[in-house]
């Protein structure tokens, strides 16, 4: 067991218990934070866009070409990732992410 830290769009930080093998998007959604995850993690909607704390970026698998293509559909920063493409493992205990803003 371990945790992830998620800062919501109002700037409030939440510590959520993580489950091995779950996508980070699923963990965030399961805890009821406002992440849409419209496509259910199929890398088709980019509604699970997060900013990953700099110190964690290198510990993640680099984005696939498919993820890069989806990231093209949102306003990114250099630390943008799709949280449905990050599978949680104990090495990611303490992972720190921020929910990206959504357009109207």
């Amino acid at each position, binding site marked *: 067991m371990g945790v992830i830290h998620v800062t919501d769009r109002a700037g409030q930080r939440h510590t959520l218990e993580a489950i091995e093998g779950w996508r980070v998007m699923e963990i965030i959604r399961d805890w009821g934070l406002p992440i849409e995850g419209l496509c259910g993690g199929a890398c088709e909607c980019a509604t699970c866009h997060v900013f990953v704390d700099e110190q964690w970026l290198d510990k993640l698998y680099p984005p696939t070409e498919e993820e890069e293509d989806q990231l093209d559909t949102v306003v990114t920063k250099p630390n943008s990732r799709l949280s449905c493409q990050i599978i949680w493992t104990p090495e990611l205990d303490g992972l720190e992410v921020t929910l990206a803003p*959504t357009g*109207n």
Partner: protein
Amino acid sequence: MTDHIETDVVIIGAGPVGLFAVFELGLLDIKCHLIDILPKVGGQCAELYPEKPIYDIPGFPMVTGQGLVDNLMAQIEPFHPTFHLNEMVESLESIGTPEAPRFRVKTSENGTTFECKAVIIAAGGGSFQPKKPPIDGIESYEGTGVYYAVRKMEMFRNKRVLIVGGGDSALDWTVNLQPIAKRLTLLHRRDAFRAAPHTVEKMRSLVASGDMDLHLGQVSALKGDAPVLEGAVIRKDDGSELRVDCDVMLPFFGLTMKLGPIADWGLNLHENLVPVDTEKFETNVPGIFAIGDINTYPGKLKLILSGFHEGALAAQKVHRYVYPEKKLLFQYTTSSTSLQKKLGVAA
């Protein structure tokens, strides 16, 4: 001479669930018209994952999103449904009584009006609409300096145009508008484009010859006294900023689903979903049904197969509104000659 289309049922949304409802209604001699804002049928299957495999459609060990849509279209062909694509259903008004419901449905684009005895809402996750990038104050420039689609190219003649995005729409409009724009700038987050290779090549040669600009980065702010756009501030990956002067910005970030006007139709809503009963999948308004991803009830699963089941049950109740005097006989397609005649397969 009528100014509206008269039909039994209007189906809002031509996703997989709306399409299959045509079949279930057709078997009961109920005619329908389908309306969708997308230029094509198939909803999420066709728009979000046409090439991806689906493994949980009964009887199909594997079928792609588009494959399923093509099969559904072949299956409902005998019933000749009428499609109204590129049209958004704007209003739904009750003009009957609970015992004899009647509805007036209006679309926005061409202002088509329908009158019908029942409405089936198969609107899925909502209507597909262009994604709006989260940039402060962007709304105040919409329609004057910010456009999410190109309707008339002439509008952009002699304008300084900033196109944002890296897919087919962004690249197509880049090469199409470059000749008439005063100056065209393309902005994308990285130096890789997910568009037809010859269009990308054309863009690269225009950049090489100095006939347009290409920048890598994201828009961080818009400049100008709203509603008049004057420029955009671009943030590059290294943190530096750049100002691009422009009269119009065209962001092409793909599509997303929004509930849209459904919220204004007097239906009960629960977290943007329409509650229904599980016997008839009827909403709080008699004669208005909701099936597929748009509805909610205890135990709801957002699966295509659930939507198919919901359509079959809703059709039974719709029959009572369309043919109040007729008794409905339960029949199998395998053995009923009358059903087979409707399907055009009777011996």
